[in-house]
């Protein structure tokens, strides 16, 4: 299943204004960047997982966290070996592998990756693309053309994933071997990416033509019939997110 796919629901998170969700996701991300405390960042991740579980999104949030932890783990390893300052923790043959500063900054970076990306990725699980696009146009007065570009890009992700698998199958059936080393795989990327690029361009061209035929250029702020009012829950969510940013700055 695609981890960016929308999960229908009627929880408090689902019912928030899409603009609020977007702002809250960014504010939580800022929290993770501002904070220098490992404990605070872990607490933030646990808090996010708790809120998601309460809103019936626990399974998705855990799967996302697991995927992000892999990315965070990679960053952890890089950071561990690149930071050379601080007391040595692991040395062999006169060469220091790990330092105290390296370890603490690597742990923080790994956790930051999870804490900043988790809310942004969860945004797609609780927000329909049409609503996000509509709210950006209605409430933030973003020109429809630009809001459409962003939302369409995300809508195309699962389509391209499935197209990519089909192309890979077609090339395997021709005798292309993708089970070799990384250099071999890179060399054989042409048979994968050229057809993908061509089919993407064709899809985009066909999409643009059908959008034009349906009056894309005529669309303005007043075209959408759905309203996206801000409620008390939205204000509460933003205040809570701001509070978190404040706490992150202090702790």
């Amino acid at each position, binding site marked *: *299943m695609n981890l960016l796919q929308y999960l229908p629901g009627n929880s408090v998170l689902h019912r928030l204004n899409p603009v609020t969700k977007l702002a809250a996701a960014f504010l939580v991300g800022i929290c993770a960047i501002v904070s220098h405390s490992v404990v605070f960042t872990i607490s933030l991740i646990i808090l996010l997982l708790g809120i998601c579980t309460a809103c019936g999104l626990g399974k998705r949030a855990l799967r996302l966290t697991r995927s992000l932890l892999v990315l965070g783990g990679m960053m952890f390893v890089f950071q561990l070996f690149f930071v050379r300052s601080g007391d040595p923790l692991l040395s062999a043959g006169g060469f220091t592998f790990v330092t105290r500063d390296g370890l603490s900054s690597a742990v923080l970076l790994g956790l930051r990756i999870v804490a900043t990306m988790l809310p942004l990725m969860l945004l797609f699980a609780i927000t329909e693309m049409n609503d996000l696009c509509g709210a950006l146009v209605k409430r933030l007065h973003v020109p429809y053309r630009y809001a459409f570009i962003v939302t369409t890009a995300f809508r195309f992700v699962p389509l391209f994933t499935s*197209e990519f698998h*089909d*192309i890979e*199958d*077609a*090339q*395997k*059936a*021709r*005798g*292309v*071997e993708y*089970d070799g080393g990384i250099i071999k795989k890179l060399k054989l990327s*042409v*048979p*994968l990416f*050229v*057809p993908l690029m*061509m*089919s993407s361009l*064709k899809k985009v061209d066909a999409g643009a033509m059908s959008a034009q035929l349906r009056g894309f250029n005529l669309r303005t702020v007043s075209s959408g019939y759905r309203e996206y009012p801000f409620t008390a829950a939205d204000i509460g969510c933003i205040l809570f997110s701001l509070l978190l940013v404040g706490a992150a700055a202090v702790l």
Partner: protein
Amino acid sequence: MLRFEDVSFRYPHSDSSVEHLSFHIQKGEFVALIGSNGAGKSTISRLSNGLLKPDSGTVYLDGTPTTSIRTSQIARKAGFLFQNPDRQICQNTVREELAFGLRLMGLPEQEIRERTREAIEQFSLDGDWFPFSRSRGERQRIALASVLVCRPQLVILDEPTTGLDYRECTAIMDYLTRLNREEGLTVLMVSHDMELVSQYAGRVLVLTGGQLIGDGATHDVMRDQPLLGRAHVLPAQIPALALKLDAGAKQPQFEDVFTVEEMFETICRLRKEMSATAGKGEVLS
């Protein structure tokens, strides 16, 4: 050439599956695989070339189980033409596209040049064409040429004529038929087009709900209305008309009629016989 022995396969997270399939395709046969959407036709074609591996049972290609060799090795024996040629075409010129498969096989450059030149002539292509800007029919022809230039023993066609006009469709099918008859190329064709099946295939496998419910000569399958009905497939028009004309007749006259030419010849013969009988009657009276 291709043998399925009690093969079952189920897609993960899906209800689609094929169950307990057993059949054997001999070298030099032209076999069509028919059935409604979701019957398992494409699954069988992907199991045949190792893109899918069976959950149980064994698929033998030229005597070797597909599970014991890599898909890329299978590709040397079994060519696969997809419905959409754009998933396959990846080079800037037709010449490079045809040479791509041969290079993957590790052939010497001299032989690659020779085979590419021959294929360009046979398929009436231009080696310098930019493949992506050609018409759908031409792209399909380029894709087929790049499969056949590798000289596979078996070619699997997944809806090969979708989106082609009659002329393009005939050109491709006639070429495959010639290779099948003259060089013993085995063809396994997945198709919805019953006219195409009745015209070109010698044997038909009928699928429904992932199970093989019919396997026989094209003539027999096309006249088996209950079987086609179970597979939710309409028979080709000429065999269907022949069946209707024979319905209730003591002596069926259209039993071996499957093409427009055969129908025309049979009607002409019957007209002649009738006028001869009528003429005799007049003399007698």
